[in-house]
Each structure stands twice: as C-alpha cells, then as structure tokens.
C-alpha cells in the first residue's frame, strides 16, 4: 500500500467515525451552512460537534500549516481529503471568508504574529470576517475608492462608506481597503483589519430582489485602527487586494465544490420532464456543467503546484458564474409555476425563486463578467491596449 493509500484509509476511517450522519445530508440553504463567529448560532448539536472535531485535527483548513490551525496536508493529500469528503457527501465543517479570502492573503502577506493570531481564529471558526472593498462610487473601478484613513501616529482614523459588504451585520471583523495617501492612486491604498464592534462602525442591510439581505452598507465614522492591524506595507494594500481577489473569484466560480457527477437533468426529471426541447437544453447544460467540473479539478490541481496561469481565477470566475446563472434559469423552467412560490413552507420559503434571483449577482460581485473578460484579454491573451 502506498503512503497515499494508507492516508486515504486513515481519512476514511476518521470520517466514518467522526462525521455525524446529519452532516452528510445535502446543504439545503444558507441556514445549513456553518459560518462560525462570535454571533453564530449552531443549528444543531451535530453541526457544533462536526466543527469542533475537524478544528481539533486541522481539517477545517486541511492544507494550511499546522502552526496556523491547519493539518499541513500536501496537494495530493488535500485532494484525497476532498475526495473522501465528497464520497460520503460530508458538508464542509466550516465555511467562511476567512478561509477562502483573508486566510490565503495572510499566508502570503501577513507577519508571523498575524498568521499565528488570525489564522488560528479562522481555523477554529471563532471570528467571522467580512470584506470591505466596494464603495458607492467604486464598483468595477475599485481602485478609485475614497474611504480615507488619516495618520494619527500610532493609529489611523478611518472615515467613509463601503457597500455590498456581504454579511457585515453578522461578521465580527472586517478586512478593509482604505486610502492612506490621496496623491497616489494605486500605491495609496492600505489593507487594514479591524473589529466591527469598534466605535464608529455601523451597518445597514440592503434589501435585494431575492427578498433577502445578504449585503450591507457599512459606514465608518472616525473609526480608530491601531497601526499593527495592517497587512503588508502602508500604501501597498492594492497588491494584497488583488491577490485576495484571485481567491475570491476562485470561490465564486464554485471550483472544487462538489465533483460528484450530478446533473440537473436528473434532478428536473423528478418533477416530470415532458418537454423534449427542455430536455435538450438540460442536456446541453449538463455537458457544460460536467465539463466545468473537470476544469475545476484541473484548476485546483494546477494551482497547488504553481502550474496555473496567475490570472486563471478570472477565467474560472467568468465561466463558473455564467454557468450558475444558466443552471438556475433551467431549474426555474423545469420547476414551472411551482418554482415561483415565494412564501410557502413547502417551497422552503420560495427557495428556488430566491436562489435564482441571487445568482444574478454572481457575475457582478467580485468583478463583473465584463471585467473578467478584460483581465483575460490583457493578462492571458496579451491583446494590445486591453
């Protein structure tokens, strides 16, 4: 038996023993997701137990180094971990922007002290993070952001407004892009971390077309941020921001989510599938979806060993989000009028319709599809003047 086979056997046995049966059920909605954090209420005992067991072994962030709360798995082992999780349909023990976005940025740009402190908190699900990037006047043109941090010696005083801050009302801390030099566009931005309970921080949920409010407006009114809470150098926050955006785009693309070969055609058939043209559309979609799942696997394999083009997350984000919008259009068509239900218990409070509407943001948030295509043109295809 090879080392990897032995490792697989070990993981399989551990999962068998430690993953509670309730945590092997498919995630139905956001309520089933364990986000962690100071304000988080566990849905049930199984969810809490699953998080604790995984965190104790470093399995909430299996490929992070052990001193930072991970299990220190190499790329091949991490793949085995994902495969074994998928095999039993295990839910991720913890989902968070800390894992997907801030963590990778800290691993690359953080000081040793910051890594030990913040990464362990993330790995144990103690602190829930939100992202302060977009502003009312700075969407696709993010670098024009105006939120300003005035230098007061040992701290900055931050004033301004962020928008589309996901779960700002539920988060404990924020990683935030703040202008610390008004004269320097790209090199005048700093990447700051601060507590959302700091005096002067307030949030206001934004009601979306889905009827839900996953995003907030976030206001900073003379918020004091100590100087040691900066990641990277003063004025070099844009480098951190861009690196992190790569990970955000990877996350939104859905790559590596679930490689079990489920098709929406098979799902739609449960409600009867009588229209041959709809069946054909579903089949064409499933070709693209299964193809993209192979792309997701290849992308993760390549990124772990540095073979992926550095701008490839932009392609993944573009393709993955456009695909997800198509998926939900077809699920609505397959569901017929029943998919229009908005409130009933039986429809899980309009789950289909709300999810469908939510996906329309996929190709806007984290960089629009059009911006992704610009980046591919410039950085991968090297087209002129792009």
């Amino acid at each position, binding site marked *: 038996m090879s080392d990897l086979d032995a490792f697989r056997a070990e993981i399989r046995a551990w999962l068998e023993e430690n993953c509670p049966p309730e945590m092997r059920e498919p995630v139905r909605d956001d309520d089933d997701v364990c986000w962690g954090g100071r304000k988080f209420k566990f849905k049930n005992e199984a969810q809490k137990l699953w998080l604790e067991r995984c965190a104790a072994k470093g399995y909430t962030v299996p490929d992070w180094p052990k001193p930072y709360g991970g299990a220190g798995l190499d790329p091949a082992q991490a793949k085995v971990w994902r495969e074994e999780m998928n095999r039993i349909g295990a839910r991720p023990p913890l989902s968070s922007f800390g894992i997907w976005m801030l963590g990778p940025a800290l691993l690359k740009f953080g000081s040793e002290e910051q890594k030990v402190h913040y990464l362990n908190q993330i790995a144990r699900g103690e602190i829930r993070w939100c992202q302060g990037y977009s502003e009312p006047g700075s969407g696709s043109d993010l670098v024009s952001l105006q939120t300003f941090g005035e230098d007061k010696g040992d701290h900055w005083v931050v004033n301004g407004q962020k928008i589309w801050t996901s779960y700002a009302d539920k988060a404990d801390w924020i990683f935030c892009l703040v202008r610390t030099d008004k004269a320097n566009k790209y090199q005048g931005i700093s990447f700051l971390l601060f507590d959302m309970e700091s005096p002067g921080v307030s949030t206001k949920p934004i009601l979306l077309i889905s009827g839900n409010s996953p995003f907030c407006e976030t206001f900073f009114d003379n918020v004091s941020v100590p100087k040691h809470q900066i990641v990277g150098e003063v004025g070099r926050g844009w480098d951190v921001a861009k690196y992190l955006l790569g990970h955000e785009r990877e996350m939104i693309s859905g790559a590596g989510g679930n490689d079990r070969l489920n098709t929406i055609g098979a799902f739609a*058939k449960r409600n009867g599938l009588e229209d041959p043209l709809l069946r*054909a559309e579903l*089949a064409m979609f499933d070709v693209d979806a*299964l193809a993209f799942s*192979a792309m997701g696997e290849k992308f993760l394999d390549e990124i772990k060993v540095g*073979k992926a083009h550095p701008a490839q997350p932009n392609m993944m984000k573009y393709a993955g989000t456009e695909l997800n919008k198509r998926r939900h259009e077809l699920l609505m068509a397959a569901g017929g009028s029943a998919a229009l239900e908005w409130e009933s218990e039986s429809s899980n409070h309009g789950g289909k319709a709300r999810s469908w509407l939510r996906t329309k943001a996929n190709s806007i948030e984290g960089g629009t599809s059009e911006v992704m295509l610009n980046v591919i043109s410039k950085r991968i295809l090297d*087209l002129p003047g792009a």
Partner: protein
Amino acid sequence: MPLYHTEDQAMLADTARGFMADEGNIAKQLRHFRDINCKDGFGHALWKQFAEMGFTGILVGEADGGLGMGNVEAGIVLEEIGRNLTPSPFLTSSVMAATALAAASDDLKGRYLPGLLAGDSVFAVAIDEGPKHRPERIATRAERSGNGFKLSGSKAFVVQGGSADMLVVAARTAGADDDQDGVTLFAVPKDAAGLSMDVVRLVDSSQGAHVKLDAVQLDADAVIGEVDGGRAVLNRVLNAGRVGAAAESVGVAMGSFEMTTTYLKQRKQFGKLIGEFQALQHRAAHLYSELEIARATVIKAQQLLDAGSEKAELMVSVAKAKAGKAAGLAVKEGVQMHGGIGMTDEYDIGLYMKRDRALAEFMGDLYYHADKVAQLSGY
C-alpha cells in the same frame, strides 16, 4: 491522479509538437496532398516517420512490440495532429483499430500488428451505416458459412476506408438491428472477394468510403474477440475513437485560436490594431475560457478511460461534445475575425474550419453525445 501531464507525458508532448510542426505542417502535408489530388489524402512517407517515432504502436502492448501507452499519450499526438491539420491514418489505425486488435487472437495480432508498427499498414474501422453516427444500429449481417462467416451489408463514410489494408467491420451475427447483443467484429482484408468501395472526397480533403459487403467469405479466425459478444470491444473502440477525436478537436481549436490572436495583434483598421477593440477582446477571452474547459474535459476523460473507471463513458461523451462545441466556436470566430482574407483559400484559417466540421461529425456530434449524457444520467 492530477489533471495535468506527468513529466514523461510532457516530454512526449514536446517531441510530438516539434515533429508535427516540422514534418506534418499544413504546407508539407495537407495542402500538398490536396493539391496533387492524392487518392489517399495523406503521405505514406509521413506514416513511416510516425512509425520511426513509435507513434503507430502507441496503444499496442509492449508484449506485442508497441509502446503500451494509454489514451492520454495517444491524445498528445492527436492534439498536435489537430494543431497542424496533419492528414494521417493515426486515429483510425493506431487508436481505433489497435484498440480492437488488443482483444484479438495472437494469430490476428501477428497478421496485422507488425505492419502497423512498421508504418506499412493502414487500417479503418467500419461501424456506421448512414450519414450520422449510430453505432447502436448494426444491420450488416454475418451468417455462419462453412468454416466461417459470410458478410453482407453496407457501411457508410468509412474514414480511410479507401486506403486501408484491413477494415475492422462490425456485423450482426444474431438478433435484430437495434439489439445490444449479437454483434461481432471482423478483420476484413482489403482484397477479400465481394468487398467493394466507392470512395468520396470530403470537405476537409479526407476520404470517406462507402463500403459494400456482398457475401464476403471469411474464416472463423477473422473474428476479433467473441462471436455475438463484440459490443464490449466495440464500445472500447468507440470510446478510444471519441476521446481521440476530441483531443484532435482541441488541437484544431488551439491552432485556429493561436492563428487568430496573432492576427488580432497585427491587423490594423481605423488606425488601431483590431485586437484593441473590446468587442473582439471579449469574444477572444470567452473563446479562451471555452477552450481551457474543453481541454480539461478531454484529459479527464482520457485518464478515466485509461484507469478503467465506470465514469469513463459519461466523461468521454462530455469530452466529445464539449471539444466539438469549443472547436466549432474557435473556427467560426477565427474566420470572422480574419475578415475577408478568412474566406480565401490562400489563408489556412479556412482549412481549420473544414477539418473541424469533419471531426465534429466523426464518432458522434454534439447532439448525439449530449443526448447520451442525458441518457447516462437517467433522463
């Protein structure tokens, strides 16, 4: 297994790329043999060079004198064939017929494999009986006769049929036309009495043969694998042919795409390089995305096939469908972005469009394979 090439595979890719660019390029092969109106549509000298490189025996077992490699490696060669539009009998002989012969008796192997390995023989595979790929239906009959079988029926658009020294023929030894069981594969030599063909030239300068089998008498030892039980071998041949065609499609797409992005960086209109226009940039970037996905799908299918995975059949259909779709987009965008010169015979971009159309049809098009994906998924 990670979805990228191992070091050995990357070396093979380098070798194949260099070889095909030097020896198999469009001017030396496709245009030359097209313009002299060669009846085979490819050069036998190049086929001998394929043999010297070891390519002809890439899927032939080491015990039989081949390289004993898999569909990933065959696909590496096919991608370069696609990129250079190299006309050759590689896909039908070294991929499909070789996959069939792997299930054959030692006697049949001894009769046919040395010629393949030496680059002296060309093989074709005769399955379909109409203009669309429909391997589920086999109407050609093989009746027991004397010591062997007598084959009667017809096969349509057999690729390389006209130049083949031997055809692998799927015929029915039992049951009705649409039955799964009752199919048998035969190795039919080109000089068999009662075998005739009408060879037609296709849009991409390749040839397709309409094959007539008029009471072709074969000895029992011409049977490949089991009598009545040929479907399993046939499915292996189809999978290898489909994923191989998908790999070649990816090569066609990449060749066309590279030519097109190069053109976008050279051609000026309105005082600008046309690659500066966002209308074209976004289309090129979308195409890039589709091609990357197609390429990932093809290597996934190749690996599953080589590993004997039960998911292989599904992913092979996904790969053939996706590669066909992406390559179709690549050649259509290629011609459009080249503008007027894209319509001329002098420029190569149109040749990519022609080859893509033929490959799209070969071994089942997007619609056939999307339907198969639906069926395999239970709807």
